[in-house]
């Protein structure tokens, strides 16, 4: 089982997210993370989907996605060098006494503090999934109140434009 990241360029139509996610559900493909947003072109959205499965599953995912009329292009990002990023907001307990320690963690991860309350801090961290997982692990001992993660977005490195 491998992790695969695919980008799906779709028509910006109502229901298209349902078509794509429905396809994954119906065919038994796993979705680890899914993000959608505008692409470089008006009228097209870019979805980035992280899934796990063997190479045969990946091949089927790509081929089945292409069957959707609203899918313009599917790119197996993980086949080449890529940059993948996720953003997380983490609300962590931080009594004044514990704050220096927490800030130490924030510094090391080049994360930032985006809100301070009497007993908590909100930390914003950007990075690949592993980095965010690690950050959360390190903050756990202080008591995490809430976590909100965006899911992965990604692009291939280099000059080539895929569309």
């Amino acid at each position: 089982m491998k992790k695969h990241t695919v980008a799906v360029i779709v028509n910006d139509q109502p229901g298209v997210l349902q078509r794509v996610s429905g396809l994954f559900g119906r065919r038994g493909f796993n979705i680890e993370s899914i993000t959608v947003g505008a692409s470089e072109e008006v009228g097209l959205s870019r979805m980035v989907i992280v899934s796990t499965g063997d190479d045969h599953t990946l091949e089927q995912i790509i081929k089945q996605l292409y069957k959707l009329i609203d899918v313009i292009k599917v790119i197996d990002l993980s086949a080449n060098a890529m940059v993948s990023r996720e953003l997380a907001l983490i609300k962590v307990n931080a009594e004044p006494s514990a704050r220096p320690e927490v800030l130490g963690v924030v510094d090391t991860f080049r994360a930032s503090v985006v809100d301070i309350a009497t007993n908590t801090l909100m930390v914003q961290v950007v990075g690949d999934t592993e980095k965010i997982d690690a950050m959360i692990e390190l903050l756990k001992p202080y008591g995490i109140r809430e976590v909100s993660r965006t899911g992965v977005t990604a692009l291939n490195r280099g000059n080539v434009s895929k569309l």
Partner: protein
Amino acid sequence: MTTTNVTTKSREELIEKFSKPEVISGSEILLRSLLLEGVDCVFGYPGGAVLYIYDAMHGNPDFNHLLTRHEQGAIHAADGYARASGKVGVCIATSGPGATNLVTGIATAYMDSVPMVVITGNVISTLIGTDAFQEADITGITMPITKHSYLVRDVEDLPRVIHEAFHIANSGRKGPVLIDIPKDVSAAKTLFKPVNEVSIRGYNPTVSPNKLQVDKMIKAIKEAKRPIILAGGGVVYSGAHEQLLEFVLKTEIPITTTLLGLGGFPSGNDLWLGMPGMHGTYTANTSIQKADLLINIGARFDDRVTGKLSGFAPLAKIVHIDIDPAEIGKNVHADIPIVGDVKTVLEVANQTATRANLADEWRQEVLASKKQHPFQYKDSDTELKPQWVVELIHETTNGDAIVTTDVGQHQMWAAQYYKFNKPRSWVTSGGLGTMGFGFPSAIGAQMANPDRLVVSINGDGGMQMCAQELAICAINNIPVKVVILNNQVLGMVRQWQELIHENRFSHIDLAGSPDFVKLAEAYGVKGFRATNKEESRKVWEEAMNHPGPAVVEFVVRRDENVYPMVAQGSTIDQMIMGDAE
């Protein structure tokens, strides 16, 4: 047949008639667009959300609509129309319950890649999402069973959407496309300009194959000692029957055709081994298992064909030809994948295909096996055997009828004992296996082929799922010959319970069925019954000579089983041969 009071106009005449720019309603646009797509018959059922559409039909001299008695009848009829003609079937239903009644039929068409445009009304746009009266999210409900769907929000989009829908339904891998039209959109008026071009970004089915891949196949044929062709519905859908015959005549490779491929290759040809799979021939199944090269042409390796997947065609190099790239490698790994339209691929292949010269011994072996193991049953003079009835129908129609079936034992006997020589003569629900399909699909097939004999073979169970459509046969004089093989039980279920569940016959008794002769007569359709061979011959002849629709009930042996049978989980050469051998 006297159904059409409509004079079918040529597209040129229609364009002429409609080319004057005119402000008309969405409903008028719909009807005109359908006519421009060449639709000559629509099946449907009205309701609140399609009132404007039906109003536009009122007194419309060009538009031919058949009112079925259930939306399920309408959609299966549209499906039968499409399968028997190659044209797009069209069906109209109202919102909510009308639309949801179509779901089984849409799924049936989707599984078998049948081109269809399904039009549903919806509540007015502002009420969508409010759980309004008769509201259902039909685009959402049918997303997994349509090739594509549209919810039309603006009347301006209608001409384009309809044109796109027909293009999508009938190109690439065909399938049903749904157009959901809110009531206000069908009422709204705008200037109508027919749309003639279509450009859908990202939708570009590959028609022509990669020549290098075709060359690889040709080379593999030269090297093969035990080649076999497995041809499926794709042959029929792409109209490739002539090219397939040429390919087989050139290569002399033995061929087996799947359930949906029946008629795609002449059954009289020596090299035809019959149908493979769960109720396929001994020779087709054993040959696949022994083959060193299997050329799949437009079939999708359904589990009813492959049996236990891991033991399927264990020795064969696999060539897979399909218009849908996603089919290649889905169930069975392809050593030589060829993406393209089957007809185009075979045209290319036929330019260089030569005889499989190393396969002489194999041909002899296969032909000997075919002689030795035909389909067999123990005939009886005291009880009517369903297989015998199908043989009777085959003989008396010279194999020239369009045969539609429902689902169950009778379907398999029809597939086994009616020998097809022409494409689009066999209409059956393969992928979904939909009971209730057989009879209404025959109505569609007959509408598409007014001059051909259409015989619909049904079980006594499935016949009761859409029997109400006898009404439209009667009033429109649609001369379908409806056969009921009455074994008084849900036969195929009975067979499984006998063979797999140790004779525990749970809820298969159809006691309480109507007197089918009287049922037919109640609708004004001629009814016949036969309980032995002599009666059968006589009654069937009368029914055939009767100019209108007829229902013929054959009371057949209750406990007859379909053989051979491959139990689920077995490889296809592990066949239960039954009582004949």
